[in-house]
């Protein structure tokens, strides 16, 4: 072969080799990526003439709020080597409302929800490290977008596992931090979390844990804005030292099922009053959950109850104690964190405590639809007064859910709920409004409406039609 031919062949081989190499590498990489997620679209219509904080002011006639939400979750799990996996969860979300009363009007976001690594140095051990939500088994979210490290170690032939976590949570961190503002003394919460998961036989599963939270996001630094002639203090003005102890159990035998749990919460917080002085408040609160049920052929019947004491001693405790949780789809209206209305007290209005109990039925209709029906009663843990009468009756709710699923891919669902407020709802609503420090014209009108309309116990309705497409 002539030399020129050899050069030509060598050039071609060299030119092709890197491309082939990249393609092979890409193919190997793709095999190690696990993609999953879903696209969900929901359309809401909520109707009320009873005051609902952040949604309905008071009116003599029924008002509507109509809006849609869009949510796309993308989970990308990359197995770098069998012992190390990198996981990210990216969400695209948006709310599109027709009314300025719509909850979170016309807002769209791309959110990196979780970015963390899971490392398994030996078979029994797992370390997760990065940005992820930390929640308690009962569904209470301890820290939403928090960075942390968690170590889990399996023992007793994997029938039990011990875990230990350290979390740094950034509560309302100042986005101008270091840019035009003084550096706050403390900018995060430190949370230490230790516990155990275990099984007894194959019937009982349990989990117990202890948590210490050192809430340090605060500062007393004085600031002076010479342009606007204003002065103040930086930070959210709150620090705390809180302890949590929890136990959750689940018993399953045959078609009978029992789930129960409790979280005890104690400690103290310092909150800053209107004069920028710190005041100490002790926290002593608790939460319980209970569900028992059985199934007969197509019918599942359960008795459910959940409740939280709140902290009746001081509304300024804010969210430093266990609130009745909405994270478990307990109801559509009174206790809900799945969109639509959530009457559940939060922040300054949840200190009176709330419980709910009732019956839940699940039935398969025409071998096509899954039907859920819930009948719930809600009451406050603290006795309230409404127009001179004692009351704890917050209200009653009926929820109906219908779902049609096509394979594991498509789900079309309709949820409808009706809540009938009672005296304690009117009373707590009025109390939450009494915290206004001054009266603007709007507030004054609200108070007038209170006189006219807050005695109203008109039914609150919520209807949601949704569609979810899952992929994996």
């Amino acid at each position, binding site marked *: 072969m002539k030399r020129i031919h050899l050069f030509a062949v060598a050039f071609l081989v060299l030119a092709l080799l890197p491309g082939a190499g990249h393609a092979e590498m890409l193919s190997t990489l793709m*095999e*190690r990526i*696990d993609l*999953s997620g879903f696209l969900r679209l929901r359309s809401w219509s909520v109707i009320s003439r009873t005051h609902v904080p952040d949604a309905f002011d008071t009116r003599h006639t029924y008002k509507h709020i109509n809006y849609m939400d869009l*949510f796309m979750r993308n*989970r990308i799990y990359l*197995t770098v080597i069998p012992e190390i996996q990198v*996981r990210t*969860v990216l*969400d695209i*979300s948006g709310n599109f409302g027709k009314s300025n009363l719509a909850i979170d009007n016309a807002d769209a976001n791309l959110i990196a*929800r979780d970015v963390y690594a*899971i490392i398994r140095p030996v078979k029994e051990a797992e370390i997760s490290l990065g940005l*992820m*939500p*930390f*929640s308690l*088994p009962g*569904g209470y*979210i301890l820290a*939403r977008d928090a960075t942390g490290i968690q170590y889990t170690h*399996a023992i007793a*032939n*994997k*029938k*039990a*596992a011990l875990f230990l976590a350290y979390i740094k949570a950034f509560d309302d961190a100042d986005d101008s931090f270091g840019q035009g503002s003084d550096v706050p003394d403390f900018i995060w919460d430190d949370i230490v979390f230790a516990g155990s*998961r*275990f*099984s007894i036989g*194959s019937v009982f*599963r349990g989990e117990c844990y202890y948590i210490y939270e050192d809430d340090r996001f605060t500062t007393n630094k004085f600031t002076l804005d010479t342009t606007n002639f204003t002065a103040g203090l930086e930070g959210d003005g709150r620090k705390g030292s809180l302890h949590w102890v929890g136990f959750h159990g689940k018993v*399953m035998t*045959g*078609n009978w*099922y029992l789930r129960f749990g409790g979280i005890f919460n104690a400690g103290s917080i310092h909150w800053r009053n209107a004069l920028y002085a710190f005041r100490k408040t002790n926290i002593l609160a608790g939460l319980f959950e209970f569900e028992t049920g059985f*199934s007969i052929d*197509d019918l*599942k019947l359960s008795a459910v109850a959940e409740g939280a004491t709140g902290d009746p001693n001081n509304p300024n405790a804010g969210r430093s104690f266990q609130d009745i949780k*909405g*994270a*478990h789809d307990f109801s559509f209206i009174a206790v809900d*964190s*799945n*969109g639509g209305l959530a009457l559940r007290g939060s922040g300054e209005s949840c200190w009176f405590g709330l419980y709910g109990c009732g019956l839940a039925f*699940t*039935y*398969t*209709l*025409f*071998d*096509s*639809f*899954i039907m859920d029906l819930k009948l719930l009663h809600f009451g406050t843990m603290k006795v309230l007064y409404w127009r001179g009468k004692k009351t704890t009756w917050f209200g009653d709710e009926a929820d109906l859910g219908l779902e*049609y*699923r*096509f*394979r*594991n891919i498509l789900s079309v669902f309709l949820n409808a709920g009706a809540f009938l407020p009672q005296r304690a709802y009117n009373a707590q609503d009025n109390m939450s409004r009494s915290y206004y420090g001054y009266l603007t014209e709007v507030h004054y009108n609200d108070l007038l409406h209170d006189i006219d309309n807050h005695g109203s116990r008109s039914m609150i309705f919520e209807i949601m039609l949704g569609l979810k497409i899952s992929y*994996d």
Partner: protein
Amino acid sequence: MTPKKITAALLITLLAIAASQAADIRPGDVYRDIMQSKTLRVGISMDYPPLNFNAGEKGAEIEMARALGEFMGVQVRMVPLPVERYAAALEQREVDLVIAGFSRNLARARSVWFSEPYLSVTPAVLADNRSIPRTSYGSEFEQVSISTIWDLKRLTDFRFAVKKGSAYEELLKTEFPSMTRVPVASNDEGMDLLKNGAVNGFVHDSLFLEYLYSTSAKLRNSNILLAGGSRLEKICVGLPFGDTVLKQQVDTFIQEILRLGLIEQWLAKYSAKR
């Protein structure tokens, strides 16, 4: 017995073994028998929707077996077999090949040959809703989700029902050694145990469980389907060890039905049927 006689006996034995091995691996033997008898004996499963309904009444693999017979120009005789008999039936020449959701693995490959794969599935679990810890909180927040069988490793216990002799029984032994296994003889038995709460989940392949899940709202009501993950099971035609001619023909047939999209068509046709 003299040393000479012993040596002769050993030689005869070795030759006999060698001759029998040679008979097993002689290329074209099985293929020639099929063409001479004008009949292809296909081992099929007892019931494996959507691949096979009621021991050969209909299904994607039944269509595939008929199409293979048509390609070879012979009649097809279906022979229903329990899963633990697939390899033995091939070794003992009771069937010429097996089309029965037969997944390839090293243990089986010692005694039978496998064609090119015509389907990929993943191990899956149809699990009781109540036995899976909740990982989503509200409409946005979720902790490490449980969506595949591998995610169950994070639990301290789980009771699996699994078919005896299936590839998944071995998978549970090696990957979930500390968890409880309940071997069952049939799919119906596994599903009954799940329905009665005697087990937390029934393990099978993703194709079969997706079929059950998609055709029964009752199952969707009480259960969650955990499927996917990076480990794939390759479904192949089981072939007698050593017949290269038959293997070549079956491989060509599979490559062509994949190229023509016939597998997808047959699966789509039977995936919604009960």
